[in-house]
């Protein structure tokens, strides 16, 4: 089915599974158009960024996208700066902010927060991460990066490594890879294994996947390695975190087995899971990935607000 800009206007972005393959490709094409865009299609528009949980890349790349397109950002970068500290619930907060803005960006530690917010307001809500659940704009950035780095999206072999249990970027990306006929390898300690519902999604969508304990031997046929950090903030027991935090480290020795075309992605921030010596390798795409985030988020904002057509093709 043909996709047009009208298909995006006013939509919420809660999970990636809300989007069809054709719509995702349309978004990525629009992002390519927006990479060097300096017009001001968001002039006069106010974007509210409610970040109840810390963020660097997502928040700043959205703010950069808004600024570069001539819009204005309002909001807060931590829950402590909001009325949540006074006991206000989320549904009240978003109903108030709806009156101040044209679009709402929401990051929240509780899972399902974005879906709930979208039920209470009429302006578009973009999920910028809800606990360990979903992070759809990161997924769009990941897909954009894969296509830029590998030259295609279809039929890629993607290896996920690290914290597959709590990593929302992993959960979002895994749920959409079936649309692109990917083959998937999951590398994690058993405690941080991909949750059953996401393995079920892979199975029910016919994705060929395997679970492997060892990173090195999984790289020989991989097109993409998606490294993740073991997230201290998701552990209730600090000892458990200490036990798993250094399970996998990607260094030049591990990379010896990798194919030449391997692209290494990481949603960042990293801690120890990628050695600094890897940064200079052509495989290392993670900083470019973070930069692509601005173009993808520019395109998304413009599409949701119905002004993408104001940018020349």
């Amino acid at each position, binding site marked *: 089915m043909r996709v047009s800009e009208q298909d995006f206007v006013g939509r919420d972005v809660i999970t990636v599974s809300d989007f069809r393959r054709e719509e995702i490709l349309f978004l990525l094409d629009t992002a390519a158009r927006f990479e060097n865009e300096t017009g001001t299609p968001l002039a006069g528009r106010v974007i509210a960024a409610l970040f109840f949980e810390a963020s660097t890349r997502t928040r700043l790349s959205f703010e950069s996208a808004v600024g570069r397109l001539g819009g204005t950002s309002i909001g807060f970068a931590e829950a402590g700066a909001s009325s949540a500290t006074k006991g206000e619930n989320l549904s009240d907060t978003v109903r108030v902010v709806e009156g101040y803005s044209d679009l709402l960006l929401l990051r929240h530690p509780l*899972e399902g927060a974005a879906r*709930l917010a979208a039920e209470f307001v009429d302006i578009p809500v973009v999920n910028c991460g*809800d606990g360990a659940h979903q992070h759809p704009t990161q997924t769009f950035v990941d897909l954009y990066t894969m296509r830029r780095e590998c030259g295609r999206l279809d039929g890629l072999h993607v290896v996920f490594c690290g914290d597959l249990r709590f990593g929302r970027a992993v959960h979002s990306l895994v749920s959409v890879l079936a649309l692109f006929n990917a083959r998937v390898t999951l590398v994690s300690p058993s405690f941080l294994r991909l949750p059953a*519902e996401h393995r079920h999604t892979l199975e029910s969508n016919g994705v060929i996947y395997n679970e492997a304990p060892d990173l090195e031997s999984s790289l020989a046929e991989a097109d993409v390695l998606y490294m993740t950090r073991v997230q201290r903030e998701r552990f209730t027991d600090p000892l458990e975190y200490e036990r798993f935090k250094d399970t996998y480290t990607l260094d030049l020795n591990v990379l010896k087995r990798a194919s030449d075309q391997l692209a290494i992605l990481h949603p960042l921030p990293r801690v120890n899971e990628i050695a600094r010596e890897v940064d200079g390798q052509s495989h290392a795409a993670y900083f470019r990935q973070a930069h692509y985030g601005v173009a993808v988020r520019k395109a998304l904002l413009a599409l949701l607000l119905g002004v993408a057509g104001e940018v020349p093709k």
Partner: protein
Amino acid sequence: MNDSGRDPGAARNRENVYEVSKLDRGTVIDHLRAGTAVRAASVLRLPPSCPMMLGVNLESERLGRKDIIKIRHYELSEEEAAKVALISPDATLSIIRDFSVAQKIDLHPPIAFRGLIRCTNDVCITHSEGIRGRFFVASHDPVTAACEYCGRHITADHFEFEKNA
């Protein structure tokens, strides 16, 4: 006991036969999967004095083994029937009036529902906002419900039923 719920073996005890087989008015939940009757009975909101009889591990042509619940002078609400269907998706429900079956329903888990169960994910937004959960059935055997908000998949064994629904 055969599928009609009558247990020939129990005929030796006349009082027992009367209690199990002759319901003047009430509800019979039949073809419950073996081992689910106690749980199904516990999610119903029966008046404290309401007589209820449970049969467990009875022979069944359809299921091999089944459980059955008979409740005197009480008709299940739609919500209660939906809860039973989530626990045992093959069950049948008969409403008895004047010693005969007034209505017979093959129970099926609802495709999508609000409430009935609570999300088992402690960090699901529904808990802090005090709203009823919303779910869809992701698979039928075993019944697995998915939370519309946080995406958590919950299998029937782990359903936590609302107490006030």
